[in-house]
């Protein structure tokens, strides 16, 4: 190995490293194989999304006649024009509901979780074991769907209100763990001590000193909360039957199901599935794909920006620090 070092000092900079990696790296063949496998995996992610996007930009008649393809056979943005005009009525309303719910729910969540986790992270809090257990129990014992249903309808009476879209998702013991670990590992005790010595009360310490340092943690919780509320379907299914309160996911699901139902009806009565396109009042398939695109759009577009927070959150949450 020492001979290698001697040789390497005379070689151009590129080959200077003599760490194990150089000796023990994948052979070119194996490296290529892994690239191929991983690229295949990535294509499995990208291609399906691409097909949906392409379909939304395809003229509907062509889509129904010729099927889903990798490039629009006949390009048409009419699905989106229709979406943004009166035709997208229920969609725009659902978008509004989902946006409000996500915003309010996420803010509620970050505040309540951020506040709750702070005393749990302080070693000078006498009751932290009790309150940690208080939140963990909710993770371990699920009250069940029926109890949840009765709670939301008969006791809280949030059924058929906008609260149903976000309230049950505005707190979670899981995020409390993540936030608590974040506080413990990223806020040095010295910072808090010096604040205390300077005479700051707990609230001041938390809001002025700790909070700015904890922003990445808040971002992680905000991310999980926002995605959870945006993607939520079950709450609407269970608690809402007024059209004007539907959220995006529920609207999407209902609209796609109606195609399936009609096709089954047609095929069971002996007609072919193609007769469906004669029914004039169905939203077109490309229109439905456009709805899917605008629903997943925000997440896919924002994804590169929040991806680093997500990784951090998962690794903290899974391996207790």
């Amino acid at each position, binding site marked *: 190995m020492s001979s290698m070092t001697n040789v390497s000092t005379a070689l151009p900079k590129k080959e200077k490293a003599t760490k194990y990696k150089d*000796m023990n790296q*994948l052979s070119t063949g*194996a*490296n290529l194989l*892994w*690239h191929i*496998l991983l690229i295949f*995996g*990535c294509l*499995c*992610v*990208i291609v*399906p999304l691409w*097909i949906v996007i392409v379909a939304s930009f395809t003229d509907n008649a062509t889509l129904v006649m*010729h099927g*889903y*393809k990798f490039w629009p056979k006949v390009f048409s943005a009419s699905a989106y024009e229709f979406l943004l005009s009166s035709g997208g009525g229920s969609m725009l309303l659902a978008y509004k509901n989902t946006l409000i719910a996500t915003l309010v729910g996420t803010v509620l969540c970050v505040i309540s979780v951020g*506040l*709750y986790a702070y*005393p749990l992270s302080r070693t*000078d*809090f*006498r009751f932290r074991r*009790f309150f940690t*257990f208080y*939140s*963990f129990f*909710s993770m*371990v*014992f699920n*009250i*069940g*769907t*029926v109890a949840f249903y*009765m*709670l939301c309808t*008969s*006791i809280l009476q949030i059924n058929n209100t906008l609260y149903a879209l976000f309230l049950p998702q505005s707190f979670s013991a899981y995020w409390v763990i993540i936030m608590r670990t974040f506080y*413990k*590992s990223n806020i040095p*005790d010295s910072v808090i*001590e010096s604040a205390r010595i300077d005479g700051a*009360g707990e609230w001041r310490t*938390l809001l002025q000193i700790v909070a700015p340092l904890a922003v990445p943690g808040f971002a992680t919780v905000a991310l999980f909360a926002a995605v959870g509320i*945006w993607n939520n379907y*079950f709450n609407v*299914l*269970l608690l809402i039957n007024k059209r004007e309160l539907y959220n995006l996911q529920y609207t999407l*699901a209902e609209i*796609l*199901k109606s195609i*399936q*139902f009609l096709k*089954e009806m047609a095929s069971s009565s002996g007609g072919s599935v*193609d007769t469906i396109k004669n029914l004039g009042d169905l939203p077109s398939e490309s229109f439905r794909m456009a709805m*899917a695109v605008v629903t*997943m759009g925000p997440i*896919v577009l924002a994804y590169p920006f929040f991806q680093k927070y997500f990784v951090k959150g*998962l690794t903290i949450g899974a391996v*207790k620090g």
Partner: protein
Amino acid sequence: MKATTLSKETRKATVKSGWGSGRTSWGSGEIKRHLAYLVMLLPGIIFLFVFSYLPLPTIVMAFKKYQLAVPPADHWLQNKFLYALFYKSPWVGFENFKFILEAPQFPVFMRNTIGYNLVFMAVGLVAAVGIAVGINELRQRKLAKLYHTILFLPYFLSWIIVTYILFAFISPAGVIPQVFKALGLEPPQLYNTAGAWPFIYVIFNLWKYAGNGSIIYLSTITGFSQELYEAAAIDGAGKWKQFIYVTLPQLVPTIILLQILAVGRILNADFDMFYNLRNGASAAYQNSLTIDVYVYEMIASNPSKLYYPAAAAFFQSLIGFVLVLTTNAIVRKVEPEMAMF
């Protein structure tokens, strides 16, 4: 991780936390601090009380035959549901549970829920470890990071979006029938093929969670000491042998622990996936019936007979609770860091 050196101030301030230390007296300002702490805890306390503790007594619904009733005007409990549940519904013991256990769908949804979860665990494990190893070994680090980023995007997409994707693939105008037609073969009507659905569920569960599952293994692998690999390489072990004899043995504890924790959740199936992916196709129903779907359908179809799904839901909660506690206790004995609590 705790800081290795705590200052004298902090050590003095760290009190042995329990359920309240009764004997030691409270320092000056400590009361004020604790009041502040309690106010901070208040939103969470209220939320958890409402959503996790308050409904606990209603679990008794599983043991009663709920009857609608209206409380008299002078009764202290004016909530119709609670009054009816606690004052007017007869106790029936395990009768509701008997109904569920003897229901024809019981073996179906039990087999489906547990069976699917076991397969998901096995397949997901291989994929997650494979991805983690591949990402870690790749010579081009930037590309590896890119692949990883792309691979866990599906975790953020709702199952409804996935239903649209599946539709674009297997509906009569979809990609797969087109491929068949191009080959001159009869295109399969996958929405109507019951036997296709277990495969569809496994594939899509993998699609959604493989990237996500690989994160833990990846961070574990990157933490391994390089010396062992160097020693193995010097001894002439190729990459595959290194994987078997160096990576895998070190990874096994993590794998076992994560799988044990997964067993704790074995009665919980992804409702959104099993309820939505088949898009209402009736042929897929038998292979899509999991316990969550069963409970939901009972609620939706028979809102006046909620005691049956209440029993099923309680069954699920209780077994899940026992499993989680047991598996967590096992994990805590072996590797306390990995236990949930």
